[in-house]
């Protein structure tokens, strides 16, 4: 974890952004504010009433019991009102916090849907996960504390000062003079803890990333007996988090004792000036009852400082987390559709790549001068050695990445001028990395066509020969697959992915090493079904098996980002180049 040297502060405008998320709830916040004010005001007034009662309790035989009784009954009524205010404020604060949490998570999730693939490919998913889950939670905790304690804290401080001035100028002045000490302590502590909280949040993100990687691939880890090594790696980051957390927690927890100490000084000051006031040494007109009230206030006066400073500490933590979440929410989205982008209907399927250039790392050339034309209904194959850029071409065709130069045309229109939705809707894709969602087989298969009937779905599954194994699953098509496809074999997952594409019935198909995990017997059946489907449709196949691509209308042979040969199987063999070599080596 590289330590950031520069002084870290919550990015400017963080608070403004926070306010934006709070805006929809300003009515509820106002209600909560009013309720807190009632509660805080009455909490101050009630001790004053108690003080007056105590003044009536002067000595044996001199107590105005009737007066005491009346005042106490009045107090009891106010106590109930005050408690009601506290309850309403708490409920509303809770509601707003939970709602803002929900909004933030939704916003983050919506953003993930439009983030460029380059962002998602280059950020550890564990860290993104940590932002959406842990950071949002911590932010919510801080926010709730802020709501519940900040408002009432401020009101209490203001009210206390006002009341103290009414009781005795000298007592009040003592308190006012000691106030900066409270503020200073609170500020110093909050400032330090913010820095440590930031480091803690970053380390926590790193730990989540390590955890995600190890737990997500636990089986591979175990296959090599690497549990202990993984635990060591985890342990190292864990130790880092431990060190960061210890500092963050200790420093932030100083705010309570710190302000409590200042408070105790205030208390002592009030006791001194108040007692002298009662004696008439300082000012005058003070009674023992009022002194009691004043001491009560002094006690409460420090409490809101405690709270506000702990709120500051928590809020610092919360703002750090919030800024990590908003960094995600505000990450630039993928290039939106051009304003005049057209929504393509069912495309004829004429695909052309013209002088396409692209690289992931803009300082290094990768794909260059890429030209390929696939006419409607034609089948094109891209072959080449590993890492030559085959998969990248798919990223470009689907607009997962934007090209750096040249043009990709669909039916003569540059794909940059077609809405992504209609572009992708026209292309069916089966990748080697089979992905199925944690849902029923049916929900997975109808992903591309939610309105498909059961008959259509079963027909598609029969054509891909997936029906027979689906039928044998515990609940057939209603079987819930579990995370990452659950316990299905790689080949079964692949069959489901193919069926999913089959049911979507697109005019253009992209197959990325799609059939590599299925046994040949099944593959040939699937191939036959695909052949049937691809009549009059465009097909782009990225494959390593020459046998599966030799019937293609055009075969493009790639090497290091460029097409080095192009033609039909027969023409390429005749040419006696790279492809012919590949073919020959396969024969042996």
């Amino acid at each position, binding site marked *: 974890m590289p330590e950031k040297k520069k002084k870290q502060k919550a990015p400017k405008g963080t608070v403004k952004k926070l306010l934006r998320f709070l805006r929809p709830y300003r009515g509820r916040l106002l209600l909560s504010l009013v309720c807190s004010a009632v509660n805080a005001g009455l909490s101050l007034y*009630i001790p004053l009433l108690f003080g007056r009662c105590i003044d009536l*309790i*002067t000595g*044996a*035989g*001199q*107590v105005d*019991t009737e007066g005491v009784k009346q005042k106490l009954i009045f107090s*009891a009524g106010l*106590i109930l009102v005050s*408690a009601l205010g506290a*309850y309403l404020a708490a409920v509303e604060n809770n509601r707003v*916090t939970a709602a803002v949490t*929900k909004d933030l998570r939704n916003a983050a*999730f919506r953003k*993930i*849907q439009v983030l460029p*693939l380059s962002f*998602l490919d280059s950020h550890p998913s564990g860290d993104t*996960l940590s932002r959406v*889950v842990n950071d949002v*939670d911590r932010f919510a905790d801080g926010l709730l504390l802020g709501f519940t304690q900040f408002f009432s804290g401020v009101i209490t401080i203001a009210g206390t000062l006002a009341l103290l001035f009414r009781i005795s100028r000298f007592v009040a002045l003592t308190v006012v003079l000691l106030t900066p000490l409270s503020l200073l302590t609170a500020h110093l502590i909050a400032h330090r803890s913010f820095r440590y909280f930031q480091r803690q949040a970053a380390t926590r993100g790193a730990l989540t990333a390590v*955890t995600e990687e*190890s*737990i997500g*691939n*636990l089986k591979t880890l175990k296959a090599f007996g690497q549990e202990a090594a993984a*635990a060591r790696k*985890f*342990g190292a980051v864990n130790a880092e988090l431990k060190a960061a957390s*210890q500092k963050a*927690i200790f420093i932030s*927890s100083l705010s*309570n*004792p710190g302000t*409590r100490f200042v408070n105790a*000084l205030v208390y002592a000051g009030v*006791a*001194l000036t108040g*007692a002298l006031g*009662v004696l008439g040494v300082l000012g005058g007109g003070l009674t023992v009852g009022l002194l009691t009230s004043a*001491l*009560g206030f002094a006690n409460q006066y420090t409490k809101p400082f405690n709270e506000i400073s702990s709120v500051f500490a928590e809020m610092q933590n919360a703002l750090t987390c919030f800024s990590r979440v908003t960094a995600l929410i505000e990450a630039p989205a993928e290039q939106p559709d051009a304003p005049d982008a057209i929504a393509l209907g069912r495309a004829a399927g004429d695909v052309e790549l013209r002088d396409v250039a692209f690289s992931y790392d803009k300082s290094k050339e990768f794909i260059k001068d890429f030209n390929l034309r696939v006419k409607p209904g034609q089948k094109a194959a891209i072959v080449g050695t*590993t*890492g030559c850029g085959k998969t990248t071409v798919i990223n470009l065709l689907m607009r997962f990445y934007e090209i750096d130069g040249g043009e990709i045309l669909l039916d003569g229109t540059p794909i940059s001028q077609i809405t*992504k939705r209609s572009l992708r809707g026209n292309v069916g894709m089966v990748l080697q990395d089979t*992905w199925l*969602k944690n849902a029923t087989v049916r929900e997975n298969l109808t*992903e591309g066509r939610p309105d498909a009937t059961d008959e259509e779905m079963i027909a598609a599954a029969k054509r891909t020969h997936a029906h027979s194994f689906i039928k044998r699953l515990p609940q057939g098509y209603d079987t819930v697959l579990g995370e990452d496809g659950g316990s299905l074999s790689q080949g079964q997952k692949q069959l489901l992915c193919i069926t999913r594409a089959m049911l979507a019935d697109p005019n253009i198909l992209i197959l990325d*090493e799609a059939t*590599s995990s299925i046994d*040949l017997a099944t*593959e040939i059946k699937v*191939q036959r079904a695909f052949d049937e489907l691809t009549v009059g449709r465009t097909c782009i196949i990225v494959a*390593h098996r020459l046998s599966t691509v*030799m019937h293609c209308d055009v075969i493009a042979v790639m090497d290091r980002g460029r097409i080095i040969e192009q033609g039909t199987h027969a023409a390429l063999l005749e040419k006696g180049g790279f492809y012919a*070599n*590949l*073919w020959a*080596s396969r024969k042996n």
Partner: protein
Amino acid sequence: MKLMLKYLKKYRLISILAPLFKMAEALLELFVPVVVKNIIDVGIAGGDTAYIVKCAALLALLALVGLSFSVTAQYFSARAAVGFSADLRADLFAHVAGFSYAKIDRMGTSALLTRLTSDTDLAQNGVNLTLRLLLRSPFVVFGAVLMSFTVDAKSAAVSAVAVPVLGLVIAGVMAATMPLYKRVQEKLDGVLGHVRENLSGVRVIRAFSKERAQTEAFAEKNDALFSVSFFAGKISSLLNPVTYILINLATVLLIYTGALRVNGGALSQGAVVALYNYMAQILVELIKLVNLVVTVSRALAGAKRIEAVLAERTDMTYPDPGAQPDFTAPAVEFAGVTLCYGDNADASLSDVSFSVPGGSLGVIGATGAGKSSLIDLIPRFYDATAGEVRLFGHNVKDYAAETLQSLVAVVPQKAVLFSGTLRENLRWGNENASDDELLAALRMAQAYDFVSAKGEGLDLMIEQGGRNLSGGQKQRLTVARALVKRAPILILDDSYSALDAATEKAMREALKAAGARLTVTVSQRTGSVAGCDEILVLEDGVLTARGDHETLLGASPAYAFIAKCEEGGEGVA
């Protein structure tokens, strides 16, 4: 609870000292009302200014000593709580890493992830606050009640009744909210699982333009989380006002009885003030305590969930020291082996028996025929439901984990690499492998060329999940990783699938020379296994034929069919 205590043991001293220092601080605070009482009854009544100043100075001194106590307490509790959670997390990680494949299947990855992150954080928070405040508050409350009794037993009875009543209320609310907070964490599992799935499937989701549907599904899960947490919050919100009402009404009662008793001459005004101050302290402490209740309920809910994972005993035990392999015995033997993944699941392998001395073994069959199930039993990823799997003359269950580990190297179907350098990844097979050995393995796995083309050699940084490599590159590196191990049994689970024909051929040649006692090749194609000394044909979990390529072409209709399909596929040329 038990869990918390177990992990706090290591921090016993500081976790006892922390609350003790807190109590010491609280004790000092309890003297404050007494001092104030003296100011009123002695200082003011006697008009003794010097006495008042002395008392005020005493108050300031109490504050200073209190401060040093509480800073010490905070330090200890931060250390104990963070140490606690770091140890817990490390143990939990090690524990989860010890789970068998079957257990991993059952628990689910995202559930395990939340245990290690969010739940542990909650528990840490709970411990920290418990050490800091939870013990201090009851101490102050009971202390204040006790002190009230020393002032006036009759009036103190009021607080003696009010406090237990409040205790009941707090316990009740905790009991009601704890299951709710457990549900909150469960819903959070759902939210996390959804985000995780979405991140891993982003290409498919976008290809199907399912962003909106995904967002809606997420919103639904998110809404469920909102409802539960809001409901839990609503109940918790009751605590504060109820405490406030009870304590203040008790104060009303206290003042009234105080008034009557002062009127009767049994009590002084200062005493009433002291009693009132104690009541005020009780109120302040209880409100603090009540605010903690939510945190502690959540912490306990988190701890319970962690406990459940830790209680999952790993279902596989290894003997120690375990058997020593007998290299004169057959490398692998299956005797009537049956494997079912779940209690009610159909058998993935039924009654499979065979024995191979060594050499090369091919395993072929259609998708779902049980090929992976069969080879997963060899390194004991799963335990056979029935029958026995033997390696080098001993049941796999008789080997120590390390021995078994050293006997078998696997190239899994899914090529997974971990973030770190290439060297670190390759050394998984053998921590002490030299760079030369690693490079030799890369050459055999046909990975040397592309690795050297990248120019960083063994220091090549691999990103999480090997994202900076293509599928074929990853696959070759996973083969190299297995080769570094030099285990007597090498298993290749469909490890040629992402390779082009030329590379596959070269790799097959190189592996022959690698010198494993037994090489098991799993494939869908007869082409990949045709050269093996012996081939097993699996159909629906049953071993239907075995023999070499030529024999099987005649003896196994299934094998002949697969071979014919391949011919058909390529014969057009």
